[in-house]
């Protein structure tokens, strides 16, 4: 186990390097941030001085080196809009995004797993058709539209939920469902196909031959095996989840990283863009890593 953990962590290094390289070179190509930082009437000397102080005259690889050293320390420079350390602004937004992501993951899981199991055990019945149909629909609906429709029906017309913002439990319900729907759709589909495969296994027949109840057959013998790939899927879905969060936060004016990032991109506040992208990528990589470890713990066949 220890060896596996170390190996797996070492594998992350090239991924991180490539990731930072891509982010950095894009910003490098973006050109001179100084023009945005200084007032328009600044003299060429002022510009040169700032460029000098930011190291912008150095060759590409030196700049990347500086960027990387700073990035490791969490230093992505100052946000020109906030006049503050970029990373600390981003970190302030983390709890909001985490709250949304966790809430929608919980929503997706409690919907998708029972639905997937239910449709697998009732294959080719009306229930199965309904569930698979809904999951295709859930994938086809853009989440921002779904969010807007929720706002229209449940917040504007009936006023059950608040239209936007963060605070109470009621605030998180609509964004979480909006963001969780696409994930739930994909999870339902995969849980179903895994369950169908596992219900055909010999050991499921053995369990039935023992005379145990349908519940034990489905939830103990089948689901435990179906769960293993589902964990991987959940990890892969974090990517979808984070991507979706950027848009969902915009719809519900949710004060998370996504909203901050969109504003920063629009304002070309590159320090914040870099810090946010770096942090999100780190988070996704970390979650995938956890899933990989969990996968091994769940399946006793894998030895270390």
């Amino acid at each position, binding site marked *: 186990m220890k060896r596996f953990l170390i190996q797996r962590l070492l594998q992350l290094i090239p991924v991180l390097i490539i990731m930072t390289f891509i982010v950095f070179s894009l910003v490098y190509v973006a050109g001179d941030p100084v023009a945005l930082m200084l007032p328009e009437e600044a003299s060429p000397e002022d510009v040169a001085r700032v460029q000098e102080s930011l190291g912008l005259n150095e060759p590409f690889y030196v700049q990347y080196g500086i960027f990387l050293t700073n990035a490791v320390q969490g230093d992505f420079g100052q946000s020109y809009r906030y006049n503050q350390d970029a990373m600390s602004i981003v970190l302030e937004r983390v709890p909001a995004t985490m709250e949304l992501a966790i809430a929608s993951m919980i929503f997706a899981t409690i919907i998708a797993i029972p639905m997937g199991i239910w449709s697998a055990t009732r294959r080719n019945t009306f229930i199965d058709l309904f569930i698979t149909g809904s999951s295709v629909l859930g994938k086809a609906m853009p989440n921002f539209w779904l969010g807007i429709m929720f706002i229209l029906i449940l917040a504007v017309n009936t006023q059950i939920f608040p239209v936007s913002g963060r605070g109470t439990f009621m605030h998180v319900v609509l964004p979480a469902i909006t963001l969780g729907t696409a994930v739930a759709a994909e999870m339902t589909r995969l849980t179903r196909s895994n369950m169908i495969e596992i219900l055909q296994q*010999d*050991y499921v027949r053995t369990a039935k031959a*023992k*005379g*145990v109840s349908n519940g034990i057959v489905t939830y103990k013998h089948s689901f*435990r095996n179906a769960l293993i790939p589902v964990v991987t899927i959940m990890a892969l879905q974090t990517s979808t989840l984070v991507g979706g969060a950027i848009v969902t936060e915009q719809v519900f004016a949710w004060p998370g990283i996504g909203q901050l990032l969109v504003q920063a991109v629009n304002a070309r506040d590159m320090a914040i863009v870099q810090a946010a992208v770096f942090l999100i990528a780190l988070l996704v990589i970390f979650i995938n890593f956890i899933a990989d470890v969990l996968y091994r713990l769940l399946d006793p066949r894998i030895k270390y």
Partner: protein
Amino acid sequence: MKDENQLLNVSNLQTHFFTENGTVPSVDGVSFQVNKGELVAIVGESGSGKSVTSLSIMGLVEDPGKIVGGDIMFEDKNLATYTNKQMRKIRGNDIAMIFQEPLTSLNPVFTIGNQLREAILQHQNVDKATAKKMSIDMLTQVGIPRADKVYNSFPHSLSGGMRQRVMIAMSLSCNPKLLIADEPTTALDVTIQAQILELMKDLVKKMDTAIILITHDLGVVAELVDRVIVMYAGQVVEQSDVFTLFKDPKHPYTKGLLDSTPKIQDLNEELISIKGTVPTPANMPEGCRFHPRCPHAMDHCISHEPQLETMENGREVRCWLFDEEVMEHERQKSGNEGTPQK
């Protein structure tokens, strides 16, 4: 027909599969009996309906399959009319089953002990500690060394033979009256096959459990059972005690099966295989279902379906060759030429 000694009486069992492309009668009017403590084999090629017959008895026929006719009398209960809930009290308790693939028949994510005690906890009113004791005891009985260690290990750490021993322990843990073993040794090494058969034989004798052995391997049959039922294309074609069957097979199909089994004493002799394959229900021949492959097929066989007829010593055979009237007719027609030997 009611016999004190009788344990299972399957009569005119019909199990059909309702597929998109029509109804498939996998088991088509099968009847046989099993007495208490008796060792019976059902023999046939794949597609003969022998596995579906056993799954029908267990109530494990899955969609789109369904028992559409006949009775399965187990003691005084008709299992053919039982619901799944009622069957659960029978399965693993009164009737247990061992499957072909020991490698895949155990759930990979639970320990041996967990899976073993499950049946005990399900059917016997004991606590976990007692169930554990009983499980370990059972593992010892099937000849597993260091049973208490194996109890806590996962299936993947055991060999195929060991896993089949675990399966036997599991199936016998509730002292069933009937054990259905579906090709229990097919997936195992030849050396291990004999050990497993020996073990099964010992245990069922000791526990007075009856066995239905499903197999295509007549070598296994000769070693283990008292009586043989030969199935072909969803029907019973011959039924006899094991010695008579090997000495004097009646049905041409049984003869074919015996001829295609290698025997030690005449290794030089050529193995004869039965030509053709089991017909699919979609193109089931008219008349006798075996006639396209039968070396003795007569005109009568092409158009008339034979019935299962009882002969001397209670053996049964489904073949026109043993119908005096038909044979007389045939002899007259062909002028004694090419009389098939019995």
